[in-house]
């Protein structure tokens, strides 16, 4: 197809409109059942998927959360930006922890064959474990922490689930360092520390940032699951609470928020990654 002016804007908008249209088409709507005299007896929902709120219903129910994003009406009744902020804070902590642990492990894997042979199998086994499986363990580990157990368990889960891409990409990056750079270090007789900071780390940075970006994506996936199970205030906690409260419109609001935030985070990391790729 030929490209035209503003196609970068119009085509995505068209795509969004199509999806919204499809959503509206399959969603349910309220219909009143009337008796013979025209009095409303009961209300019921009709449509292809009766329980699915329509676009308009979702907007009406979510308006207050979007238009007053920073409002705080109660523990589980806050503006969407406030919930997002809570989630982001927790993700930032868990993700930071993942990078702090994952990067050195990645370097060890990349530098030492013995270390790789010893720990690679266990890493390959732990890597595919779902966050939903880690979380109960996290809660048990921090049982003594009392009120903080939920937070610490969530942090543990985010860290352990999101660190694998960082670990593996860093290891690949270290192994991919050209022999020439190492020869330079050898000819100059750089000390081990200097070789690490002047050669190994700069040479690995592009790979590390690819790992960081993938890790952030996973951390954001995990936060929702963690909040749902621990009932912490946040986008995921809100989603689960509103499911239990039968306010289905807010589930959709939460999903859209989670998606948008995840998208923005990935874009930001891509920008940073591109900066390091350019060297």
């Amino acid at each position, binding site marked *: 197809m030929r490209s035209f002016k503003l196609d970068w804007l119009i085509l995505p908008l068209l795509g969004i409109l199509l999806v919204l249209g499809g959503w509206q088409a399959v969603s349910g709507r309220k219909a009143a059942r009337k008796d013979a005299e025209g009095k409303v007896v009961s209300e019921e929902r009709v449509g292809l998927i009766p329980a699915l709120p329509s676009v308009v219903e979702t907007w009406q129910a979510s308006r207050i959360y979007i238009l007053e994003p920073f409002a705080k009406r109660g523990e589980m009744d806050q503006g969407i930006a406030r919930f997002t902020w809570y989630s982001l804070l927790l993700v930032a902590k868990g993700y930071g922890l993942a990078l702090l642990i994952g990067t050195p492990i990645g370097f060890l894997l990349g530098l030492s064959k013995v270390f790789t042979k010893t720990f690679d199998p266990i890493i390959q086994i732990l890597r595919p474990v779902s966050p939903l499986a880690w979380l109960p363990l996290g809660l048990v580990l921090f049982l003594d922490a009392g009120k903080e157990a939920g937070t610490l368990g969530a942090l543990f889960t985010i860290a352990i689930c999101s660190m694998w891409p960082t670990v593996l990409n860093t290891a690949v990056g270290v192994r991919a360092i050209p022999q*020439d*750079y190492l*020869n330079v270090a*050898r*000819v*100059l*007789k750089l000390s081990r520390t200097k070789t690490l900071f002047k050669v190994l780390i*700069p040479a690995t940075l592009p790979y590390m940032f690819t790992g960081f970006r993938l890790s952030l994506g996973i951390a954001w996936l995990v936060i929702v699951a963690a909040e749902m199970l621990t009932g912490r205030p946040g986008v995921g906690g809100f989603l689960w609470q509103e499911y239990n409260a039968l306010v289905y419109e807010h589930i959709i609001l939460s999903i859209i928020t989670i998606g948008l935030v995840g998208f923005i985070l990935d874009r930001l990391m891509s920008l940073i990654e591109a900066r390091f790729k350019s*060297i």
Partner: protein
Amino acid sequence: MSLLELSKVSKAFNGSPVLCDVDLCIARGEFVAIVGFSGAGKTTLISLIAGLLRPDSGEVRLEGRPVTGPGPDRGIVFQNYSLLPWLTVYENIALAVDQVNPAWDATRRREQVERHIAMVNLTPARDKKPSELSGGMRQRVSVARALAMDPQILLLDEPLGALDALTRATLQDEISRIREETHKTVVLITNDPDEGIYLADRIIPLTAGPGATLGPSFTIDIPRPRNRKEINHDPHFKQLRRDVTEFLLASRHRPHATVTRKLVLPDIEPEDLNLPRSPQGGRRLPRRSHEIREEKVEIE
């Protein structure tokens, strides 16, 4: 006493010999070119001198002391530049200068870096990253970095191999000029006899591998400064080029490649009439053996 001495140096990789009994003596201030085929072991030889590799047998000595590892007293310029791409020209050279001369004060180190950037005419590009430079400029940075360490000996491993012919000529002249200025001892590895003869005091061919060794040394007494245009008509130059090339070609005693061809012999053998006849045919029937034999053809 010679500055660099290799005695009976041999090196093999995975059991296949690359260098055998290499002997080499280089005096202080000498410019020696080692010329050989691609894959003959030239880079192995320079890596042994640099100390990046250890010989299987024999010894490499610098100023009488055995070489046990790489060090800044042997400045090496690799074929593929090996600049650190995240550092600027200045930073690449400063990394070497700071590492080699930790006792110098900051001003002196900066002067050392700037002087060597100026020596290779790269002052306008001092804050550029290697990716922003052409191949020739990158190689100049590499030369400047090696020289800024103030090494006893400068090892050039096919420094101009990856460059186009015009850049090559420019850089040859530049290497020649820098060498006149610094009076450094230089070992140049190259696959181009002309380049070796144009630049060096002595040219030594490396025989074709495997198990390569150094041939006789040819002294080049063409007076300096040498002129690129005139040198082509110099009878001594022509003679040297002929001698070196002939030695190299003669050293290539093994054929370069063998091709194995499959020969399918005729598919049928006549029946043996001496054997007794039987209703089923038995052994008297013609035998089809599909016999396939192989023939090796050597290509010169």
